[in-house]
Structure formats: structure tokens, C-alpha cells
């Protein structure tokens, strides 16, 4: 079985919103569109997006860290939004695990959005149906595109390459490897939705050194005190070895 998903590296994301605009551009003109904007140049602009980038500040000034957090449908393995749909418009594809909405069946009751703990479904005020990330299903299988372009628009757009795309059920895929080896985690695991999309944490490389590892305690030259070693402030032999 295949479960396509995104892996988003929060250590790499710079919060540039390129994935947001690329997603909107591709999908508003594609089969999942239009993603209508209402009042775009007015006082209260609003619109439909499949992907948003939010920013959180972690810690207290001055020890703060800025975390940019891209947020889109997680294509849960056990999606709570699908069984509640009264019409069957919301469904999860068996062949690749993508959660989709059939716009022709949706009655716009918004119940699925209530049933999603992540708030990633957005109601289109123009078409009056529920919309959500499709993982660019109209793009990733398009044989007319070069192989390298058969990826979601957000993945292709990300300038620092924070977004990975692949099959998380294939243990050797780039996404499975990233989750396994770089600490990938799901959002709100407490609800048992088993999100397919994973996030890679912020990472800092630190080496843990114990105090007595810095000075050799059993240095024989220090034991009999006959030939003391150079102090740490003086140049050592290493500084002159060339």
C-alpha cells in the first residue's frame, strides 16, 4: 500500500510563503480550483488556501527562537473528516492515501471541517463547497511532465528545500528515511488520527563533553612533576608542528 505524504523540515523553513503562493497559483487554475479570493484589495480580504505558513516565537526574550510552521492537510491514515461526511464527497484514495473532496457531491455542510482537529479544510465562499490540499493529485501523475516535476507545487517551489514528498509506507523512500533518521514527528498524536505528513524538528548540533575530558587526569608528566606540560595559555607542540 502507498501513502503519499509531505515531510516538512522546520529546521530549514525560512517562512518565505513561496509554497503558499505556488500552491495557490497551481491549484486555483487547476482541477481543484478556483480558490476564490473575496474582497482581495478591500478592507477585509479573505480567500481559500490549501496551505498556510504561520510563525511562532518559542521562549522568552532574549532567548527566543522563531519557528515558521507551514500547515496543510496532513492526509491522515485514519482521517476523522472522512467518515462524518454525509454524502461521501470526502474520501481517502485507496491507491495512494490522498484525502480528497468531490466538489460535485459536496453539499457544503462544513461538518468535515468540524471533524478535523487541525483546521486544514477551508470552505470556498464562492463555490460553496469544502476545499483542501490535494497533494497536487493532478500534477504528480501527469505523464506529460518531466519526471522531476511530478511533485506537489509547494515542494517544487520551496527555495531552501524544506519540503520532501514521497511514500511513507516505503521504508527506503526519502520521506521515510527523513522521518526515521531525523526525528520526524506527527502533529497532535493524542487524537489517533495518524497524520501522514510529518515534521522534522529544529536541530542544533551540540557535543556533550565532560569536564575531565578536557584535561587528561592521568597525564604521567603531571604525576612526578618532573617535566610539567605547558600551561594551556602557552603554545603547545601542536601549534608548531607543520
Amino acid at each position: 500500500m502507498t501513502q503519499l505524504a509531505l515531510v516538512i523540515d522546520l529546521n530549514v523553513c525560512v517562512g518565505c510563503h513561496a509554497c503558499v503562493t505556488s500552491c495557490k497559483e497551481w491549484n486555483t487554475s487547476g482541477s481543484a480550483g478556483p480558490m476564490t479570493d473575496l474582497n482581495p484589495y478591500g478592507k477585509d480580504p479573505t480567500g481559500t488556501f490549501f496551505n498556510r505558513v504561520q510563525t511562532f516565537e518559542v521562549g522568552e526574550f532574549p532567548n527566543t527562537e522563531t519557528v515558521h510552521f507551514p500547515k496543510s492537510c496532513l492526509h491522515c491514515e485514519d482521517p476523522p473528516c472522512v467518515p462524518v461526511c454525509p454524502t461521501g464527497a470526502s474520501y481517502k484514495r485507496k491507491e495512494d492515501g490522498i484525502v480528497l473532496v468531490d466538489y460535485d457531491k459536496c453539499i457544503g455542510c462544513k461538518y468535515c471541517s468540524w471533524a478535523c482537529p487541525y483546521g486544514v479544510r477551508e470552505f470556498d465562499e464562492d463555490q460553496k463547497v469544502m476545499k483542501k490540499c490535494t497533494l497536487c493529485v493532478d500534477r504528480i501523475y501527469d505523464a506529460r511532465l518531466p519526471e522531476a516535476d511530478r511533485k506537489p507545487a509547494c515542494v517544487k517551489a520551496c527555495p531552501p528545500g524544506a519540503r520532501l514528498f514521497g511514500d511513507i509506507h516505503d521504508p527506503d523512500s526519502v520521506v521515510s528515511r527523513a522521518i526515521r533518521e531525523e526525528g520526524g514527528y506527527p502533529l497532535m498524536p493524542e487524537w489517533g488520527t495518524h497524520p501522514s505528513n510529518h515534521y522534522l524538528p529544529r536541530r542544533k548540533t551540540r557535543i556533550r563533553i565532560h569536564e575531565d575530558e578536557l584535561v587528561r587526569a592521568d597525564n604521567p608528566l603531571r604525576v612526578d612533576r618532573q617535566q610539567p606540560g605547558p600551561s594551556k595559555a602557552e603554545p603547545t607542540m601542536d601549534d608548531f608542528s607543520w
Partner: protein
Amino acid sequence: MHPAFSVIFLTTLIGAGQGLFLALFTAQTYAAFDLLPAQTGPGFYGPGSLLALAFLAAGLLASFFHLGRPERAWRAATQWRTSWLSREVIVLPAFMGTVFLYGLAHWLDWRPVLLVLPSGLPVDPTAVLGVAGTVLAFLLFVCTGMVYACLRFLREWHTPLTVINFVLLGGASGFTLAAGLAAVAAPALVPFFAGWAAIITFLGLVGRGASLWRNRRLRPGSTVQSAIGVKHPRIVQRSQGFMGGSFNTREFFHGRTGAWLKGVKWGFLLAAFVVPTLLLGAGTAGGVGGALFVFIVQYAGLIAERWYFFAEANHPQNLYYRSMA
């Protein structure tokens, strides 16, 4: 959650309709056992069923205003295997049809004895339809309640109290309505309906009070830490990713102050429960005007109660929309 008036009217109107039907059939059952004077002729149960049907139809009409695409509403009956909303969509018309037939059988006084129970009690079509309607009325209460109670991360709703309160509050308003109807068409039944209305209203106060008490003690199931997966006690949102509003900021926030919420809470506790129980106990429902007054006060209270029911539910997605920037 943002309380939608379409759903508020749907749930309160069909609740009253269901309660009224249950009141009518309870009275008929009591009469069958000679515990109440029997109401012969088309004068009481027929108009009563029509009134119940009117409430149910008004509720159904209100529900259409919640839909973005009402012309496709028929599709909502297809997923009854998994969706409580779909089950509600099936049970509501089935119940309405049964109420219609029940009222029609009474109106036409079509009461041939179908069989006689061992105790000597004759069973006629109105009894059969009444039992079927009672089952469907309770089934509809369960479906309506479970639409909300099944959403496990909306923890204020995810409790059996949600279903119990839908039954009690619908029953209370229905019996109050029945007292008003009886004041017009069958004065002998007024004390019976008013008495039960007072009892069910009091039970509703206990049930709703229990859910308010429970919800005050709820701990949030998710935190901003689990929402973004960062382990730190102090996380502040600096940007939502947009400057204006979005579906997420409109649909899941009631946008009212804490004082407003508190006012609505005490308002509905008084109007839906305390005042009706006192008025019913004091015999205000004896006259038509008095009974109508009690029902209007209680129904207004129930609208406030349902508004509060939605507003008090805290959706975990709100963790992603904690501050605007």
C-alpha cells in the same frame, strides 16, 4: 465554535416537535390504561400531530440554510453506515412521515382493532404508529446528539450528556407545548402535560447543569506544544499566515466576550429551566395565554442554551489561530 442559527433552529425546533409527539402518545397510552380521560374524535391528536409536524418541518427548513449547496441535500442520505449526520437525514423524514400518518389516523378516527393483547387491551393503528413514532423520535434524538457527541476532540460535546440533554430539552419544550395545546383542545389533560413538563424541565436542568459542571473541569486535550510539536512552556503565535480573516477564524470562534458568554449561560439557565419550572408548578399553563407564555420563555431559553452549547465548544484548531498579525 461559531454558533450557526440555522443549526440552532434545526435542533431546537425538531426537539420541540419530537417532544410534542412523545407527549401526545404518552397521553394516549395513559388513556388506554384508563389513567387519563380518553380524547375521542379528531379534536386533539390530529391538530397536535399537525403542530408537531409544523415544528419538524420548520426545523428541516432551517437546516437547509446551513448548506452551501442545498440542491444536493438528497445526497446526504447515502453515508448512513459511517455518518451520524447522514443517519439524522434519514430518520427525520421517516419520523415526519410517521407523525403524519399518526395524525391522519386520529383525524379520520381510523381505529379498527388490529389485535387484542392478552390483558384485553385492544391495539389499533394509532397505537402501532405511535410506538413506531416513539422509537423514531428517540432514534432522532440519538442521531442529533451523536452528530456532536461523536467528535472526540470537541471534548465539551464528547460525552453521553450531550445525547441525554438533547432528549431532555426536546422533551421539556414538547411537553410544555402539549400543555398549551391541551389548554385549547383538551383542558382535562393540562395538569398531566404541565406536570410532566415541569418534571422533565427540572431533569433538563440537572442534565445541563451536569454538562456545564463537567465542561468547566475539562483540561484541553491538545496544547500549542502538541499542535506544532515544539517542547517549550512558552510559545507565542506571531503570525497566522494572513492579515485578514479566513474560514478558520470565522467558523471556529464565537467572537464574544467572556461577560457575554456568562450572561447567556445564566440567561438560559433561568429562561429554559428555572422560570418554566416555577410557572408550570404555579399552574400558569392552565390558560391558553399562560401556557403559550411559558412555552415562548422556555423556547427562547433553549435557543440561548443551544447558542451556548456551540460557543462553549473549543475546537483544537483554534490553537493555530491564537493571535492575529
